[in-house]
């Protein structure tokens, strides 16, 4: 047997921080991601490209929810209302943003169904507004008029889905602006460290926290509220938190790594125990078969800011494995965003000296750490970055 050649087949595994360590960092106000210049380059760069991509996702989701509402054949749903030949050609040539990934996130959020938005979708108020829309719709559309009585939940379910789509579009609008602001702030010198970066994100989230989430559609010239202002849905609690839950933490099993075979029982019957989200996913199979985030990595690859792209070209296989590197950086960035979200939602200020308040904060941090401790936290240390730097 030929011996393993350690010089050539470099495998590495940064130490995984313990739960106590993570909790201590959160309570001390330290960042989860280690402070280092390359980390800053990676996170700011990847968030900038993510911001560009989210901008497109957001525009499209809002367009779909408003203009393609209950359209049975939304052939041009990705064209954002611009069916010009040039745009159709680009679309056919797949020279475009992968909006399928935005839909994938929407489906994940809708399917996991947690938080205030989801709860509202089951209220009587929501049912009543749906009933009004459906009445208006079925009057004009005999096929729907026939299907609705036979499948009474069919249209309501589609409206619920559209509501989630629109809410996610609004959420991403805020996040896109925030990430692009961050890149500007970093260029201006206002953000120069991971700690400042997390603070910047936290401030952005806190500022948007109370922003209302509403959604109205127009059917046959008539305007209907789906998510009315009276529902008092807000950005942070009703959309951002369920989004983090569904996409960062739980996620959905990838066909490319997990068997759906019922007899094999690889997937938990309890969705709350899922751990397939962005913070848990393995970056290595990116761009392989059955790995949906590959679509996002491709989109970000097409919008990479030059400094980061330049740095990637010097790492590992250079352009050859750039999308795996994007994924690894993206995971670091998502830890920063999570970090900002946690910091922004502590029940009490971390500086509080009140014992019960400290207790509450500790309990809050412990709840998060319980879920983060088995995430891919090995990407947080700066050893990986140091090695990356030395390999160029």
């Amino acid at each position, binding site marked *: 047997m030929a011996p*393993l*050649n350690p010089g*050539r*087949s470099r495998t590495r*595994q940064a130490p995984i921080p313990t739960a106590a360590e993570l909790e201590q960092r959160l309570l001390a106000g330290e960042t989860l991601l280690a402070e280092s210049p390359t980390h800053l380059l990676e996170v700011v760069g990847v968030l900038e490209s993510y911001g560009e991509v989210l901008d497109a996702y957001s525009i499209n989701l809002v367009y779909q929810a408003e203009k393609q509402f209950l359209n049975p054949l939304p052939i041009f749903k990705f064209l954002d209302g611009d069916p010009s030949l040039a745009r159709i050609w680009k679309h056919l040539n797949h020279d475009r943003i992968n909006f399928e990934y935005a839909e994938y996130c929407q489906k994940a959020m809708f399917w996991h169904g947690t938080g205030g938005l989801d709860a509202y979708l089951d209220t009587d108020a929501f049912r009543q507004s749906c009933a009004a829309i459906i009445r208006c719709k079925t009057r004009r559309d005999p096929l729907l008029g026939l299907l609705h009585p036979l499948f009474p939940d069919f249209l309501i379910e589609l409206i619920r889905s559209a509501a989630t789509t629109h809410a996610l579009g609004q959420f991403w609008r805020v996040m896109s602006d925030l990430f692009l602001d961050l890149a500007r702030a970093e260029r201006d010198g206002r953000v120069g460290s991971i700690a400042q970066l997390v603070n910047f994100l936290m401030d952005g989230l806190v500022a948007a926290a109370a922003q209302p989430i509403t959604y109205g559609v127009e059917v046959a010239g008539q305007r209907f509220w789906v998510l009315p202002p009276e529902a008092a849905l807000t950005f942070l609690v009703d959309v951002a938190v369920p989004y983090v839950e569904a996409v960062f933490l739980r996620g959905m099993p990838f066909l490319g790594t997990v068997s759906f075979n019922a007899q094999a029982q690889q997937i938990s019957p309890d969705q709350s125990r899922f751990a397939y989200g962005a913070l848990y996913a*393995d970056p290595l199979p990116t761009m392989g078969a059955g790995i949906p985030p590959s679509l996002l990595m491709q989109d970000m690859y097409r919008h990479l800011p030059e400094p980061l792209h330049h740095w990637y070209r010097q790492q590992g296989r250079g352009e050859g494995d750039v999308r795996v590197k994007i994924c690894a950086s993206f995971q670091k960035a998502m830890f920063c965003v999570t970090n900002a979200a946690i910091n922004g939602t502590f029940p009490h200020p971390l500086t509080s000296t009140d014992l019960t308040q400290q207790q509450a904060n500790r309990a809050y941090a412990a709840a998060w750490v319980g879920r983060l401790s088995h995430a*891919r936290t090995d990407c947080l240390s700066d050893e990986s970055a140091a090695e990356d730097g030395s390999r160029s």
Partner: protein
Amino acid sequence: MLSALLAIPFLGALGLMLWPGELSLEKVRRAALALLLLQLAWSLRLLLLFDPSCGGMQLQESIPWIESLGLEYRLGVDGLSLPLVLVNAGLTLVSAYASTTVTQRPRLYFALLLVISGAVNGAFLSLNLLLFFLFYELELIPLWLLISVWGGARRAYAATKFLIFTAVSGGLILAAFLGLALVTGEADFSLTPVLSGQLGMGTQLVLLGALLVGFGIKIPLVPFHTWLPDAHTEASTPVSVLLAGVLLKLGTYGLLRFCLGLFPEAWAVAAPWLAIWAAVSVLYGSLAAIAQRDMKRMVAYSSVGHMGYVLLAAAAATPVSLLGAEFQMVSHGLISALLFLLVGEVYATTGTRDLDVLRGLLNPERGLPLTGSLMIVGVMASAGLPGMAGFISEFLVFRGSLAAFPVATLASMVGSGLTAVYFLLLVNRVFFGRLAVTPPEPGGPLDIRLPAVPLVRHLPAMVLTLLVVAIGLAPSGLGYLSEQATTAMSQFPALLAAISGKPA
């Protein structure tokens, strides 16, 4: 015309060694590549001059040499040897192309490659027994050096083993040739079949036996095969390509040309036993391959199995089976060269060939996706999947041999089925799954860094893949080239049996 195929490599080798001044590896390699390209072009020119509709020797050249010894410089080419000459030219070129990491004594290395190629050409082309033997031996020493100087950790053992085996092989062959001259009293060492009128069947069988063992070692057939896996594991990738793709064919070529060609009657007597031997060899090689953990050893054992088909086809000696033998020689040459190249690529990148260690190399960004894809094509070709060269070869062999030796043929077909087993295990283990180069464990390494393989390094493998597919889809060309020669060969035993059957 034919002499140029000897002159180009031999003079080239001499030139490389004698060139005044320092030569860097890259320069030597370029020079060798240029010479080998010339040799390939010349071989292709031969292809154009060759008349496939004629079954005999063509483009003959002869110069008397040491007449008292019966040694005559006499060359010729027919449908049996021409494809092998082409394979030799192509694969030596591939081998030199793949020799990018020769750090020590590059001049000697490439000169030896050239000598091997020239000697192999000589062996395929020579029409004199002693001349064949000279070339057969000439190829031996350079290969021994290539293994023992540029080989792996246990190269001394492997090289010695190789040397002993092939020396015995050479000795037996020489003994048989000399013996033939001795007992027939005709010392011209020409390629004329021996008739029972000249020589008793017992003597014929003994001489045939010596030749069979001699070539059986080279092919190799069980139980004379153990040098091959060791030689392959220790040899560097280009040498393995040459060894599997070209040098083993000297054995099967000898089997057809000399065993069958010189002793057709004795062959007909021995054929049932040879068929059994072939089946045993096929099954033995395939079963042993299943148990291997080293990719290279696995491919090496598969060679043992697949060369057994040639013996089966030769034993049956029907027009179709002999054509199948020719096809099998060519396709095994191409396919095994392809597989060794790819295994070499995996080894060069990961530092290991261990099936228990490698996983998931198909990973598109960090793995070796192109190597993996070509490997899938290669193993499928080797397993005899239609549309590739292996299938038509095996089909012809089986179709030609079934009527004569049904049991041995069916057993060999089982061996063909087993090929799928071990190669599928190889592909599934090494290329499927999550990328890893250590045994997977929970919380194991998350990040794997293997250097990328540039596209140019895959060029030979891609060309070989295309050739394998081309022969698989359009085998008529090769068939047309060789059919007359193999049909003519298949006529000897029948013809002679018919003649000797009638009382004179």
